[in-house]
């Protein structure tokens, strides 16, 4: 597809809000998150549940003596595997496809698994009583130290979105012909999502109807999964979450504490609040698994990639397989003569793994893009030139089918220009600034563009105001803001006139806010709804004797800039405010829906980017400071400049975190996460993040969806980690192939 073609099909102009729709609520502390509601139930009735977790990795709970705890002040009930209500649990449902621990049996599969719930009048009382439980375990030998048991690697039972093995061309021949090869092993660690808002639920029953406030990326998913877990009709469950305090994947599934909270509310016969402690965020709500990648590259002397081989092994829980497809990018990021990728798993008594910001692509690009850098160095080629040499014009992983839109070349060139790539020193360890060794590196970013079916409802209200609603979520992603913009654009109104509602499962259904798909799914549904609304308004006007448009053909009418107009008679128009006023101030409502087009299987939809990093490495301590990062992304149009670039920079910050900070450490003897808190599990603080420069190419992808926009939630993390790792190499001459790159590794290598 040519650039010109893309640019010809611009979507309707969308007026952007100056600041976030919910901004004032957020900066004044009035914004309420799941655990912060105290209505409609009586606040005086609200009681607190605390989750008790196992302290062994494998075996079973033999007994729990709750005698003392039950008599402790304020305690209402202690629910254990031995007295919990029995549930007729159905099979776990995707995408909340989780093997939950709902106290239905006493078995233990990981250290930190829920084994009891204490309900008390106050949180202090619940926690104190939890400590009084006398728990006796029957331990079984645990599978730990998975990285020492790679010979046990097996094919995954349920590989998820992609097959676990994929082979194209003759990989052996590629290596036989290669002038230059790379053959190394790269490791990424276990990581924990840690949104600032910990997972939290308030549950209450009115007869057989259950309502929950729940911190979730997927209200409809929680609704379905709760109904399934508790064996109640899905229509009896309502899930509310108007604002999510971050998710990053951990809130994409419903975890055990949600049905346990509902169970506690049933047992206690009161509204129950269950908020996970920060320490409880390390295990029972998912993690990104560690990956060990064996990567081999075969290239001709001119840089042409003859073969890419990526064999990925990761840890999985003994409870269920989750595959982190780190090998994914090796299939399609570059054109190569042959490719061979595999993903295998080794079982361990650890918490269940799950999707975490850019699952697959985050670790995948973090390792593959180091290998590319190593290859470029061996070939004495500029890293960008090597990537251009092997530019995938079509999708190599799908028999060369076309991309819906791809402008990665522009990302490389604009990024290099902004960053000043040409001025870098190509020889490692040659540039310094005081104590800092300074280095530069780059990498390619990529993430699939996804969308799903979604529904929305819009209303034109008296006074030129509008209402739009969809059962989606806002995790800080700007959903409120862009929904208001999209609704307003449909009638040419000011987005400030729009009221938005989301985060309630009684609203029209929308997909999980994960996989960078929310806006790409929900906005087309709003667009469809406003189109329906327009038709209704036109119909109303042409049948309204008092309207200047009375009697016109519907096809002759349109809505522009908040007015109904006649296309053939430019002078004739009717105001939307007047129309509704004449309609006895009755709002006009329309519903809309959208789903991926039929054409989706004939093309590949993917976002792209180029990331450039400058780091300083303290020559005495090995401390790394990321001084600046430039990221240029091809993500279609950006729906709101402020929130969009902010989100991309957030992803880049996660890349910094991936490269230099995050590392979930498992105690080899007990399987406990030893650094399970925010003091020891490091995520970046403000001082760790230098100047970030995010921008987009901005060419709409109208083959992907009618608004021309692909998701931006995850691409920012991809590529950034490797750009930093490559910059660290450029600064120090030390090639670290195990994340995170911390002072000890730099010092000892």
């Amino acid at each position, binding site marked *: 597809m040519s650039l010109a073609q893309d640019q010809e099909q611009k979507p309707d102009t969308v007026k952007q809000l100056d600041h976030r729709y919910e901004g004032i609520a957020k900066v004044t502390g009035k914004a309420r998150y799941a655990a912060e509601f105290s209505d409609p139930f009586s606040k005086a009735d609200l009681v607190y549940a605390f989750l008790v977790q196992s302290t062994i990795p494998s075996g079973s709970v033999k007994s729990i003596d709750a005698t003392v705890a039950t008599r402790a002040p304020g305690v209402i009930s202690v629910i254990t595997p031995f007295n919990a209500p029995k549930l007729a649990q159905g099979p776990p449902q995707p995408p909340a496809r989780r093997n939950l621990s709902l106290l239905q049996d006493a078995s233990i599969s990981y250290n930190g698994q829920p084994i009891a719930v204490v309900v008390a009048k106050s949180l*202090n009382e619940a*926690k104190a009583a939890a400590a009084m439980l006398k728990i006796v375990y029957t331990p079984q030998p645990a599978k730990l130290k998975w990285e020492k048991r790679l010979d046990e690697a097996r094919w995954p039972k349920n590989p998820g979105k992609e097959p676990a093995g994929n082979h194209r061309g003759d990989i052996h021949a590629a290596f036989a012909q290669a002038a230059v090869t790379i053959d190394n092993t790269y490791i990424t660690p276990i990581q924990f999502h840690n949104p600032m808002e910990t997972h939290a639920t308030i549950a209450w029953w009115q007869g057989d109807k259950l309502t929950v406030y729940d911190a979730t990326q997927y209200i409809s998913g929680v609704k379905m999964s709760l109904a399934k877990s508790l064996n109640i009709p899905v229509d009896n469950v309502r899930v509310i979450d108007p604002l999510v305090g971050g998710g990053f994947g951990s809130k994409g599934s419903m975890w055990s504490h949600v049905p346990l909270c509902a169970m506690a509310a049933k047992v206690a016969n009161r509204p129950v609040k269950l908020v996970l402690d920060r320490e409880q965020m390390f295990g029972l709500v998912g993690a990104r698994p560690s990956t060990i990648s064996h990567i081999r590259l075969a290239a001709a002397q001119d840089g042409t990639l003859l073969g890419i081989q990526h064999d990925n092994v990761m840890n999985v829980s003994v409870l269920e397989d989750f595959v982190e497809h780190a090998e994914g990018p090796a299939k399609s990021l570059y054109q190569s003569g042959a490719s061979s990728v595999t993903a295998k798993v080794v079982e361990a008594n650890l918490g269940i793994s799950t999707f975490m910001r850019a699952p697959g692509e985050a670790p995948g690009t973090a390792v593959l893009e180091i290998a590319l850098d190593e290859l470029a160095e061996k070939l004495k080629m500029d890293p960008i030139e090597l990537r251009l040499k092997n530019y995938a014009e079509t999708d190599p992983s799908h028999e060369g089918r076309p991309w819906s839109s791809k402008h990665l070349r522009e990302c490389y060139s604009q990024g290099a220009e902004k960053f000043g790539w040409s001025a870098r020193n190509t020889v490692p360890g040659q540039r310094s600034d005081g104590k800092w060794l300074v280095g530069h590196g780059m990498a390619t970013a990529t993430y699939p563009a996804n969308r799903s079916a979604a529904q929305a409802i819009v209303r034109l209200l008296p006074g030129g105001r509008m209402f739009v609603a969809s059962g989606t979520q806002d995790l800080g992603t700007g959903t409120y803001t862009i929904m208001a913009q999209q609704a307003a654009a449909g009638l040419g109104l000011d987005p400030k006139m729009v009221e938005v509602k989301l985060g309630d499962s009684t609203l029209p259904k929308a997909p999980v806010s994960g996989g960078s798909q929310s806006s790409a799914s929900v906005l087309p549904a709003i667009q469809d709804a406003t189109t329906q609304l327009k038709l209704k308004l036109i119909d109303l006007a042409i049948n309204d004797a008092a309207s200047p448009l009375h009697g016109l053909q519907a096809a002759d009418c349109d809505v522009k800039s908040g007015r109904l107009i006649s296309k053939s008679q430019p002078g004739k128009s009717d105001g939307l405010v007047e129309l509704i006023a004449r309609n006895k101030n009755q709002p006009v409502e329309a519903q809309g829906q959208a789903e991926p087009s039929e054409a989706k299987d004939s093309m590949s939809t993917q976002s792209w980017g180029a990331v450039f990093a400058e780091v300083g490495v303290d020559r*005495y*301590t090995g401390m790394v400071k990321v001084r600046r990062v430039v990221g240029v992304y091809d993500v279609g149009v950006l729906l709101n400049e402020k929130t969009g670039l902010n989100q991309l920079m957030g992803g880049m910050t996660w890349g910094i975190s991936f490269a230099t900070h995050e590392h979930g450490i498992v105690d080899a003897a007990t399987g406990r996460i*030893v650094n399970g808190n925010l003091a020891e599990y490091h995520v970046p*603080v403000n*001082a760790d993040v230098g100047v970030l420069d995010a921008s987009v190419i901005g060419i709409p992808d109208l083959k992907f969806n009618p608004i021309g926009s692909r998701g931006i939630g995850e691409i920012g993390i991809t590529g950034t980690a490797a750009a930093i790792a490559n910059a660290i190499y450029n600064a120090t001459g030390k090639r670290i192939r195990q994340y995170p790159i911390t002072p000890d590794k730099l*010092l000892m290598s």
Partner: protein
Amino acid sequence: MKSFAYSRASSNSEALQAVRTRGASFLAGGTNLIDLMKYRVEQPAALVDINHLALAEIKRTEDGGLSIGAMARNSDLANHPLVRANYPLLSQALLSGASPQLRNMASTGGNLMQRTRCYYFTDVSFSACNKRNPGSGCAALEGYNRIHAILGQTDKGAANGETCIAVHPSDMCVAMAALQAKVGVEGRGGKRTIPFAEFHRLPGSDPSRDTTLREGELITSVTLPPARFAKNAFYLKARDRNSYAFALISVAAGLDLDGSTIRSAGLAVGGVAHKPWRVAEAEQSLAGKSATAENFAHAADLLLHGAHGYEHNRFKIELAKQSVVRALTVAAHGTSEVA
């Protein structure tokens, strides 16, 4: 958290009386005690709030040193004009620690009483911790020991009831050690002064005890001798984040220079032992010598002599040596990294 009785003391004597209740503890800034109470590592039956005692004064002593009230907050101490002017090492160490919020809360006395960040100490689910549960063994020795001790530790094997490889986490105390502070305490038996080097202890055969403070004693002040390192001092902190992280290694280095000749030096290392690590011989090796990289490296070797690492923390030996040389080198030029 276990339930406790709360009372406020309005005088030292009232505080000393109140803390005689069984299981009572003093509550100062609370940044470490409340933290550990939430983790159920500390379970006092009563808290005696000493935040309202008249112990926050920072003033010059008769001999030209500095007296710091035990309740002086870390942020106030770091920014006090006399500290900035005469004890930049202390100001730097304080400002390297924790966060602005925590420094506003944390007191001087409380900082001395900070307990280790050893994962196996702070998580009560680990049964083996000789510090928390005397005689139970040491889970860190064969566990994840990246942040642990390389000097002065007790290592008799993981199952032994005396083994402890925990480190003291304070930044302030490392500077205090290099500055040879004295700790003023008050107890039932009256007042006494403890030289800084004797305040914190090595685990020895009883890792449960961090300090030589006696039961019921209240820290009232910390006194610094007249300033020697006002012009040449540097606190270096190597850590995994650029702020708000505990030290992997920290170095407090002060030099009293006569031209390029060192009259005397103050040198202590944090993140390596159960207490701020100071070796008089290392300091003395610099006296009368010129401020050169070779002399600094020699001092570093003396300071790190006998260091022994474990599976995950061997890097600390090299990191400490490099950091000592670097900190002394910066100190030889002034109080900042700006050349």
